[in-house]
């Protein structure tokens, strides 16, 4: 919240601004308070309005097209809820991809100075899946990632197509799991590599490792019962020190298998996967963090609890004791076809012996480190780039280490990562405007959440439509912006909170306004608008773009139709300023001519001069005797030609003499008028 203006303004201006700001506050005070009360009430007693909320859904998921709606049975709800706990998103789509995005790698107990932050760690991800027979497994190396400790930058996500999770020969997905292994990269190995060399090596590694390799492991799946799980959990709670940022952390004691800890080169050897793992006790900590897109935090919490419980059951404990830098995460089990891993953030915990060279098995000094990653399902097909880009984490890590030294932190990859992060997690900015000045800017971090009633809308259009329709005391306008959703907020000056009747009676006089205090608005639901399928209004956010200045003042009666008085036809908007009421004395002129023609006691020339004179008098609207003198000379000027041609001069002279006899004009005026007629020069 800040004032518009300079700090160095004089005190007068400052007082003025202060007053303006108070006005701003008072204008927004009432709507804000009202909507706050309504929000509290809604949280306590939700009201479900039976109004059209079609803007809340996307265009294509029409409820009528959902087949389950038609054959819905109330008894199926329980079953549905049960299924819901099992179903993991995007399970059945063969086109979908499992996307793993490594976020963070951190060492929790860093005791020795030998482990500097420059040390690069390497995580290898492999896919274990049954091969042809349920007893045999094959390992597919998916890629290697390198991290610096405390490295919280986003890496390029790894995309695994769903198809590759399946084995062709075994139709039912079972026993497939992801295997994480972690390793410290020797300093010497890194420093000797240039990035280009490394890339080529990785490519060859992919070529090697993507061919399935027969695994010698046996699977004898055993499930830890829930009771034992809870016991284990309590033990670990006592003895664990961990990062506190994960709220709903579950600790899972699970299986891991031994891998050779000494690998001097990059993971490219077939022998690695063939090597027999030693049994060891290991700890995997999977912490599931709250997803920002979940509408109800409480619900998500409970669901995630159940999920993790189930997950615990599925993970087998094969290798009770030994080295601990390998973690296996089960993707599928025998029971269902659905993937066990739900979308969200996970954290995997490792314990690595501090010294690789140490062969002393009795007192291993363990380094506890954690690798956090985000797992999601996407529909985007994996590009070939994904495979080749697997190399980039290490490159980036090396680059970053070099860049730290060079004080140059920005890399193209960083930029790209930031951009994608912005698009998914952009905040919405509300500008509170009073008299065309923005006095306050509020940022709502969850993008599609209504700031007034905490309703989560699914997209921008829904949010704007919801804001405008359910909070009519304020006026919301959408401001197009590149990355952000910017909304201008004003107090709706046209809102009439005192109206108490049907909305359709707003225009009626007398009952529309109630002057004795606020009255509850009568619900009006009898008209349900139906629009045929072909005529559904296209939802477009541009309808909220119009600026405040475009509003024209509208008042009652703007649509009233007025009529021309003679033709009784409606007055068109273009004619609203022309007057059709003015006296039309056209008939009077023709009537005058006609009546003069009917005279029988005057000759033709006299009739002509009478017609000219009378019509001229009608048109000039002469009302007083004093006008006559001026009118005589003007008449002479105007009708000079006719009088000359028809030789009416004598008749005109007789008429003028008649006027002078009446005392209206003098001899001078007669002379002047005649001279005008007789002047041949003019």
């Amino acid at each position, binding site marked *: 919240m800040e004032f518009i203006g300079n700090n160095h303004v004089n005190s007068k201006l400052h007082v003025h601004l202060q007053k303006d700001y108070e006005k701003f506050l008072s204008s927004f005070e009432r709507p804000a308070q009202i909507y706050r009360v309504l929000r509290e009430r809604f949280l306590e007693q939700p009201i479900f309005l039976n109004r059209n909320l079609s803007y809340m859904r996307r265009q294509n998921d029409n409820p009528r097209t959902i087949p389950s709606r038609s054959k819905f049975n109330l008894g199926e709800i329980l079953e549905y809820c049960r299924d819901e706990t099992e179903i993991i998103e995007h399970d059945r789509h063969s086109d979908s991809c499992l996307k793993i995005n490594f976020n963070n790698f951190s060492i929790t107990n860093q005791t020795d100075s030998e482990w500097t932050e420059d040390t690069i760690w390497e995580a290898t991800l492999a896919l274990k899946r049954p091969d042809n027979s349920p007893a045999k497994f094959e390992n597919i190396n998916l890629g290697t990632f390198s991290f610096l400790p405390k490295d919280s930058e986003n890496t390029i996500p790894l995309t695994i197509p769903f198809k590759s999770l399946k084995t062709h020969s075994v139709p039912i997905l079972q026993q497939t799991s992801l295997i994480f292994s972690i390793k410290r990269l020797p300093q010497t190995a890194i420093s000797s590599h240039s990035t280009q060399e490394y890339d080529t090596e990785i490519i060859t590694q992919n070529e090697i490792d993507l061919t399935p390799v027969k695994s010698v492991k046996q699977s004898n799946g055993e499930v830890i019962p829930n009771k034992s799980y809870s016991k284990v959990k309590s033990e670990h709670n006592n003895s664990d020190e961990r990062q506190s940022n994960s709220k709903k952390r579950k600790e899972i004691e699970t299986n891991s298998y031994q891998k050779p800890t000494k690998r001097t080169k990059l993971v490219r050897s077939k022998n690695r996967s063939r090597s027999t793992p030693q049994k060891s006790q290991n700890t995997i900590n999977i912490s599931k963090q709250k997803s920002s897109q979940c509408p109800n935090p409480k619900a998500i919490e409970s669901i995630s609890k159940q999920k993790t419980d189930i997950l615990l059951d599925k993970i087998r404990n094969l290798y009770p004791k030994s080295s601990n830098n390998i973690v296996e995460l089960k993707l599928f089990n025998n029971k269902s076809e659905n993937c066990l891993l739900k979308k969200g953030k996970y954290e995997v915990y490792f314990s690595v012996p501090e010294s690789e060279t140490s062969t002393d098995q009795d007192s291993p000094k363990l380094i506890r480190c954690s690798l956090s990653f985000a797992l999601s399902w996407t529909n985007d097909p994996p590009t070939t780039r994904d495979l080749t880009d697997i190399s980039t984490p290490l490159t980036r890590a090396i680059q970053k280490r070099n860049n730290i030294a060079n004080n140059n932190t920005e890399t193209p990859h960083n930029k790209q990562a930031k951009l994608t992060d912005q698009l998914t997690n952009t905040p919405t900015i509300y500008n509170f405007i009073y008299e065309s000045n923005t006095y306050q800017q509020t940022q709502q971090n969850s993008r599609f959440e209504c700031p007034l009633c905490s309703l989560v809308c699914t997209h921008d259009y829904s949010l704007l439509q919801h804001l405008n329709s359910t909070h009519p005391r304020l006026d919301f306008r959408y401001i197009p912006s590149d990355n952000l959703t910017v909304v201008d907020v004003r107090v709706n000056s046209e809102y009439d909170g005192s109206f108490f009747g049907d909305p359709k009676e707003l225009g009626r006089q007398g009952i529309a306004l109630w002057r004795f205090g606020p009255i509850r608005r009568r619900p009006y639901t009898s008209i349900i608008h139906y629009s045929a399928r072909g005529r559904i209004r296209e939802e477009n956010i541009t309808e909220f773009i119009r600026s405040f200045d475009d509003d024209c003042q509208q008042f009652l009666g703007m649509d009233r139709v007025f009529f021309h008085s003679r033709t*009784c036809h409606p*007055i068109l908007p*273009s004619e609203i300023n022309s007057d059709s009421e003015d006296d039309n004395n056209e*008939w009077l002129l*023709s*009537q005058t001519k006609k009546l003069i023609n009917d005279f029988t006691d005057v000759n033709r020339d006299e009739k002509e001069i009478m017609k000219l004179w009378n019509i001229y008098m009608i048109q000039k609207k002469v009302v007083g005797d004093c006008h006559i003198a001026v009118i005589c000379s003007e008449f002479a000027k105007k009708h000079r030609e006719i009088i000359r041609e028809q030789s009416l001069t004598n008749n005109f002279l007789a008429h003028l003499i008649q006027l002078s006899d009446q005392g209206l004009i003098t001899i001078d005026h007669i002379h002047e008028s005649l001279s005008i007629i007789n002047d041949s020069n003019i």
Partner: protein
Amino acid sequence: MDSLPTSSASDFELEDVTSSSFALPKFKYTKYIKEDHKKPIYCVQFNNHFGKDNQKILASVGSNRASIYDCTEVGSITPIQVYVDPNSDENFYSCVWTYTSEYESLLAIAGAKACIHILNVTNGKPYRSLLGHGDSINDLKFHTSKPEILFSASKDHSIRIWNIATVVCVAILAGMDGHRDEVLGVDINHDGSLLLSCGMDHAVKIWDLEEETLSEAIHARSYSHSPIDKVKSFNTLNVYSAKFSTRDIHTNYVDCVRWIGELVLSKSCENVIVCWKPDIFKKGSIITEQKALILYTYTVPNSTIWYIRFSMDMDFNILVAGNQIGNVFLYSLRVAKKPRAERLSHPACNSAVRQVCLSPDAKVLIVACDDSTIWRWDKL
């Protein structure tokens, strides 16, 4: 579409009446129907744009409905279409046929609610609505050579000229020398130059449509006005004075007038139809006195209520008129001396006959009565 029939009347002269002889046809009652609205049927009209030998399509208006009948078969009145106005207070007084440029039949109906509805009978849809009259509309007539030009006579003392193609009111014939009371009837002469009108002010007036600005407005300006272009409304002409006006013929409401060549047939509620000649056809001289020369009178007994209309066949041979006790009288317009009347009556037909109508070939006579019955008489 055949050429319009009134062209044969242009050379109708008084001498022709004496020279030719025409025998009145005999008619025989064949059928009657009763519409169920229990209100008078004020107007029946045959669509004579089909020609003499084709279909005989009849339109009748009464209450808030307009009915279309097929009378082609001998002794049949078969309903084809009925249009009902949504307003139950509407009462149609008049109907008239015309056609579009695509030769679709149009029926214009108007009545108490001052709105002229034009229905497209061919495709059964409303075509246009003309609003603007200040009170109920008593009579409608289309121009003889321009099927788009419509004349309407209204209770608001005015006659309006409309162009239904562009939906404009071309002119308003009312004012100082116009009617001083309800206008009850209009008729246009064979070449569309003179408009005849009569009203409750006992006057019969003749309006000159050949006057320069009015003629230009009717024939040129009204057609060039685009109905879609709503930017500027049509500059409606005002005609304040009629070319000829007389109150000498009748001493009561004049409720029906017809041109017959240069002669005028007019009827009041005085038991007579008067044939007279307006003194407006002297060329080259200024008319100082407006005189009407009465030529014949056709006696219609028991005809003292107003708004009963007579009619003629297409060849101007037969004049038919009804009276208030259900009788129909036929007069031969071709007989010189003493006009002979023939009376048609039916024992069940005893309410006032609002209008009698002859089919284009003069073989079918339709009688519309106050008790919402329609009677059909066929030529023997």
